[in-house]
């Protein structure tokens, strides 16, 4: 195992709850809206 793989082995892993949230339709519907709003903010900065 080289340095990269050793570092990966020490990385935090998501909890089962976090993994479930990543595909939970209700949670993700909200995140879809939130991420889009965040991206629109970025677009507004670029289109000034």
């Amino acid at each position, binding site marked *: 195992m080289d340095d990269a793989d050793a570092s990966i082995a020490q990385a935090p892993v998501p909890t089962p709850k976090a993994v479930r949230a990543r*595909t939970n339709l209700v*949670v993700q519907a909200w995140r*879809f809206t939130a991420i889009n709003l965040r991206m629109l903010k*970025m677009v507004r*900065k*670029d289109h000034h």
Partner: protein
Amino acid sequence: MARVVVLGAGISGHTAALHLRRKLDKVHQVVVVSPNSKWNWIPSNIWVGVGKMTTAQVSFPLAPIYRRTGIEFHQALGVAIHPEGDNDHARPYVEITYTDPTRSGQTDSLDYDYLINATGPKLNFAATPGLGPDGNTVSVCTPGHAVAAAADLAQVIERLKQGQRQTLVIGVGHGTCTCEGAAFEYTFNVEHELRQAGVRDLADVVYLTNEEALGDFGVGGMTFSHKGVQTTSKTWTESLFRERGVRAILQAHVERIEPGVIHYEQLDGTHGALPFDFAMLLPPFRGADLSAFDASGSDITSEMFAPSGFMKVDADYTTKPYAKWRAEDWPSTYRTPGYPNVFGIGIAFAPPHQISQPHTSPNGTLIAPAPPRTGMPSGVMGRTVAQTITDLVQGRSNAHPHTASMAAMGAACVASAGTGIRRGTAAAMTMYPVVPDYEKYPGTGRSATDTTGEIGLAAHWIKAVLHHLFIYKAKARPGWFLIPE
């Protein structure tokens, strides 16, 4: 009457051409020269590369769009720029060679009032012996390459189903490559497909990269704010690699690829050999092979272009150490020095230096990710230069040119980690600015509130929506200009 010639019909060139045609009166001409007959939404090629999309879903013919919008189209390769004209041409002009099958090989010249060089990258597979579809690896750089990659991947999955262990290597094929984000996406899409096929346990998936650390992405990494906690893109990306069981080899320059074996050097000067059954390695980029000549016919290519073949614009190209790099080194108007009616945008402009810190191995090998300038920044540059040219054509010659420095521009990036309306995932990242500005944002160089990262199904939905939205926009359908770049 003004004539604007756009070399290249990728994201930046096509965006510039459409905005120019919309803003300029019909008395003015907008001309596009592209060696390709089709427009390609390159970010979705990774899905072609795992067999989840067809080439028809990620590309479409340009000619009908240009016919409908009133843009003159030449399917041809830009060969040389004569920004001062010459004895036979009173006006500046470009030489082109047709790739259109009906007149392939014929040459012509197009004079211009304004020229936009948006020729994108030359895929420099030749930089690494054995790299690319003509060598021993596959690619997802074009739809055709991606189809071939999907066919190879299907064979690997078949062998896995027969119980044969397989090693799949995905990454970049040279120490100076860019587009690590695309390699990251393809890695996790392949890993996702292996799981979907029920053969993940017999497959070793290895990410081979020139990045100093995971999550560098050629932008020096990022510091994210999420749920009130700051974390680095390194930790965030390593977490995904651990979760999905993907190995990584970092700080690598691929030296050559023999059938079934990748030979590489790492930053510490050591050499390694990595056996593989399937390898998708992206090539380094060069500028298109354009030449330039002055009025007397003298070759001025080295004045207009960097040695990498990319066009010099209003950047500070002074050689200076990493510690001296500044945000203001980066161009903002994309005008070529000496020729204010010539612009270089998208991948075609020469960046002043990398964004990630470059390194050299004890053997003198440069291992330095090149700065990404695709996608959203490319589109913004195209629109910005179109606005500047429109002002100039409409007589607002005293107006300041519009600006779009990557050091004052944000980017939204959605990196797919597996497709599927219920099972897909992607990493949604925003960063502001793309090029860190350590004077404005001490510490990380970027806004702590506008630099974010998040993994989930929602990000996959966004990538899927963007696929359709940008193809709609590129087809110049009603209201296309309301869709931001």
